[in-house]
């Protein structure tokens, strides 16, 4: 699999998996049977958390998000704790731990305590299938894409438990909204990913990265529409603005998190970022070529390329959060069913047709570039046409009010001003 890798030495920084392999092989000789699996799991999780998840959560998810949104909002963002405010996330965490974890009197205590745990566990599991580098994938199972989808459908239940158990009307609102939204957005999400699966003919994330490496093109370019739909759907499932109706601050206070405080809330907050990072990592793997960068991965450690891409995709979430207003819940549902799902189906038809043509032509590499150009053009056209078909008429909306010189009472529409 890794023919181009320069060395297999444990000190090769380009592939940190060598190191863990050396450790495990050495451990296998002395330790009793079975323990080495546990050790491998521990090493995998600890390494992926220490290298990627925790630093990313703290310094991209918390600090970076606040700083970037601060700049978008023409203010400084955190700049008090530590150099450039870099220690702000740690100060936040300390503050959260000191806070009292309140539980409302008539709440369902057990469910309320279990919900954060049930929320955190899938986030940890998600990173098991993300390929950080050529060998650096903890569980290289053949259906890792489906694994990712399956695990990422679990946190909604935790959200529901949190919202329902708190015995608060706002929480219940949030719970109902998130359940409805997840049902709606799972469908176009899977449909859009199906396009990527069809063109790369694999369900394995590592296989998709290798496909991108082989054809020297990102799947996001071949499947631009799928990338956009994935981004929208995933931001809906992650409750990121503009689709954060489940914890819409200005409407239902904090949605399902209204009654949570202290570290119980902190777990939800931290793992929200964890899920967003996992979704970004998934998008970077499927659509942006994972740890490859057109040959650069021979010189730069691939995991650095991968983390860079992930954070770049994560910045998109921050950007939309700082720019867009929130949709109403019924509009959001209508958007999923009337807009995203048909577009995803169109996209699927196109990509299946392309796949047929491609197989007729003996899988010629040049065709992929042709498909990419065609798909980019057609996607733009399709989005615009479908929007028009659904009644999108931006020119009909007046941007300026009518102007009247005299105070003369009611001026009917169309009357000369």
């Amino acid at each position: 699999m890794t023919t181009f890798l320069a060395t297999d030495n444990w000190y090769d920084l380009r592939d940190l998996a060598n190191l863990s392999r050396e450790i495990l092989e050495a451990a296998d000789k002395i330790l009793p049977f079975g323990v080495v699996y546990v050790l491998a799991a521990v090493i995998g999780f600890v390494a992926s958390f220490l290298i990627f998840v925790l630093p990313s959560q703290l310094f991209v998810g918390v600090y970076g998000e606040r700083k970037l949104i601060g700049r978008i909002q023409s203010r400084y963002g955190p700049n008090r704790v530590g150099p450039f405010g870099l220690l702000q996330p740690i100060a936040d965490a300390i503050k959260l731990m000191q806070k009292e974890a309140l539980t409302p009197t008539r709440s369902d205590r057990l469910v309320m305590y279990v919900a954060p745990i049930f929320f955190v566990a899938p986030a940890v599991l998600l990173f098991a299938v993300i390929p950080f580098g050529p060998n650096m994938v903890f569980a290289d199972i053949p259906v890792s894409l489906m694994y990712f989808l399956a695990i990422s459908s679990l946190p909604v239940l935790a959200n529901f438990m949190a919202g329902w158990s708190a015995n608060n009307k706002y929480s219940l609102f949030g719970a109902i909204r998130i359940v409805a939204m997840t049902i709606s957005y799972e469908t176009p999400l899977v449909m859009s990913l199906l396009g990527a699966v069809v063109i790369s003919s694999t369900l394995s994330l590592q296989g998709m990265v290798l496909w991108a490496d082989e054809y020297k093109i990102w799947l996001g370019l071949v499947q631009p529409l799928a990338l956009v739909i994935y981004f929208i759907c995933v931001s809906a499932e992650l409750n990121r603005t503009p689709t954060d109706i489940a914890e819409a601050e200005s409407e239902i206070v904090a949605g399902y998190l209204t009654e949570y405080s202290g570290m119980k809330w902190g777990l939800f907050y931290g793992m929200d970022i964890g899920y967003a990072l996992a979704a970004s990592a998934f998008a970077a793997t499927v659509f942006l070529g994972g740890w490859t960068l057109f040959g650069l991965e021979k010189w730069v450690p691939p995991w650095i390329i991968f983390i860079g891409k992930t954070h770049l995709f994560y910045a998109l979430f921050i950007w939309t959060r700082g720019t867009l207003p929130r949709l109403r819940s019924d509009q959001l549902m209508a958007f999923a069913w009337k807009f995203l799902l048909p577009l995803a189906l169109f996209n699927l038809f196109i990509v299946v047709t392309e796949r047929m043509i491609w197989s007729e032509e003996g899988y010629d590499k040049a065709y992929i570039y042709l498909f990419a150009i065609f798909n980019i053009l057609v996607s733009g056209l399709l989005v615009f046409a479908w929007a028009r078909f659904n009644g999108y008429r931006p020119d009909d909306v007046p941007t300026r009010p009518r102007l009247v010189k005299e105070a003369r009472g009611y001026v009917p529409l169309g009357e000369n001003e």
Partner: protein
Amino acid sequence: MDGFGVTVAFWILAAVTLVAGGGVMVSRNLLHAVLFLILSFIGVAGFFVLLSAEFIAMAQVIIYVGAITVLILFAVLLTPRASRDNSETVWALPGMLLAVCLAAIFLFVVHDTQWKTVTDAPLLTTQDLGHALLGTWVLPFEIASVLLTAALVGAIMLTRSAEEEAEDALA
């Protein structure tokens, strides 16, 4: 299937699945029952992984945990608070007796039969499953898709209110 890991995994999964199934039976609150049901589904998915059917396991989690239980939760929320208890009818005792008898029969059959089994897991990939579904079983596959569509339409028709139908009749 030998090996320490597999054995431990089996007993843990069996405990989780059956205890959660029992939880569905005994919990008074319907929503707690749903949460136990989720746990049971996850346990069954674990069994599928253990039986080297990854695709089915993932499909199980996506469809059962991600979709069906969410639907059930929705149905529970749509019915009022008063009808959220999970109590038994007068048929509880006969039903349980029947279940116990059936369990006895099943267990007898399972343990009394000399199963002809393979020792190693057959090499089944997701690709094989795809070929089977779209090759050998293509007709049932299509019928299943028609069934899904019919269910979709039927579910929508069932839950429409009289006002909505009146609105559509006018339009």
